[in-house]
């Protein structure tokens, strides 16, 4: 059974204070790992897809990396508008119906 664990559950940062969020996963064969951002009262919005160990993707202050067992979402010099819940999800190679398995998320708060 696929498992996805995110840590920490919640993270408070000061504006400009860089940090990383972790997503560890157990899957028999990984097709893709996905990062999403979710604002209160809204559906998750896509950030990144990573397919293989060693891959990195960047967008503004965010960089996602992938190893064989975990992924990190690095946030460099965050701003208050980066406050949100960040979700990661995995898709197994042989999954029925292209289903994703989600972690519980990390709630990030960036104080000005």
């Amino acid at each position, binding site marked *: 059974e696929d498992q996805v664990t995110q840590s920490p559950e919640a993270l408070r940062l000061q504006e400009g204070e860089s940090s990383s969020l972790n997503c560890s996963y157990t899957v028999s064969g990984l097709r*893709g790992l*996905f990062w*999403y951002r979710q604002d209160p*009262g*809204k*559906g*998750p*919005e*896509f950030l990144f*897809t990573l397919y293989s160990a060693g891959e990195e993707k960047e967008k503004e202050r965010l960089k996602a990396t992938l190893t064989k067992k975990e992924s990190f979402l690095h946030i460099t010099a965050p701003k208050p508008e980066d406050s949100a819940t960040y*979700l990661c*999800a995995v*898709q197994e190679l042989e999954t*029925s*119906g*292209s*289903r*994703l398995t*989600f*972690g*519980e*998320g990390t709630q990030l708060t960036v104080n000005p």
Partner: protein
Amino acid sequence: DAGITQSPRHKVTETGTPVTLRCHQTENHRYMYWYRQDPGHGLRLIHYSYGVKDTDKGEVSDGYSVSRSKTEDFLLTLESATSSQTSVYFCAISDFHKGYTFGSGTRLTVV
């Protein structure tokens, strides 16, 4: 992005009443999903569909049924709502590169 809309956005209902939530997509995506999101549990799959009249159960399907009579519409029904079904419900469609595209959610309160 594919258009995906959920209705209603908010609903309050009484215990024991039937409730139907609707998900509508404007493009021809084959796979559609219903998730519920609760604190401490994250997103959990209720049911999914891989085509018209083709559906399957997810990890938390008890008390829920679904129907898909047209490609664009995926309905989630709570036959007899219970307080444990108070949650935020998200519909999603499969996207090859993005995993899923989500709707805006339906906040359901069962009193």
